């Protein structure tokens, strides 16, 4: 499992940046990522990875219901 492994400041920044990105249309997110200030460079790959999953999560109804067992 991929752990988050972020300090509190970076976690807060990731949370804030993710909100900003999700306010944008999917087509605008690539450019937004590319224009992130240098101070967020360490978070950029993680944001890219998260945003790349958005369409799949939505169309597959990821975690939309509990598995049956």
């Amino acid at each position, binding site marked *: *499992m991929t*752990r*988050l492994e972020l300090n509190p400041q970076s976690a807060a920044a990731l949370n804030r940046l*993710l909100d900003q990105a999700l306010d944008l249309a999917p087509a605008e997110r690539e450019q937004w990522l590319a224009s992130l200030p240098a101070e967020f460079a360490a978070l950029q790959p993680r944001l890219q990875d998260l945003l790349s999953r958005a369409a799949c999560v939505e169309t597959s109804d*990821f975690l939309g*219901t*509990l598995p049956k067992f």
Partner: protein
Amino acid sequence: MSAQPTPLTDLIRRAHDGETGALQSVFELTYDELRRLARSRLQTVQRAAVLDTTMLVHECYLRLATAKKLAVEDRVHFFRYVGRAMRSIIVDIARGALRAKRGSGDKPVPLSTTICESTSAGEAEVLRVHDALDDLAQLDPRLVQVVEMRYFAGMTEADIATALGVTDRTIRRDWEKARLLLARALAS
């Protein structure tokens, strides 16, 4: 109808304020109803629509209210509590199911782990989501509450918003963020 808080209502409030002993007492008083709710959610044959699953939560609440364990006015307090409790119960059920499939005591452990793993995907998903929630709490503890209420308890966005005192839109955003983070955590 009396607005006087019932003992359970008072306990839920104290548990919400972080009193550990109160939480344990609430858990014991509601355990049978919540376990029945968990079983209903886990065993529904068709892929349950959100409407169906949230009805189960309402029914559970009404049974507790009818049994005079909970005041009708305290629906919101119950909804705040039910996600956390359902997570605990469902994780226990998943662990128990895995133990049963893998065998215990005198029962031999299956030699083919492939078969075991292929029939335990549901339990594994539940346990991986449970583990990954610690990471979500680092970003925002409310993300954890939303996953508990939405995924584990099957509540609607509207009920979750009411319980947490925020807008439906906030809950939709939290759920969107939580699912992205969980998709990444569960992918590897």
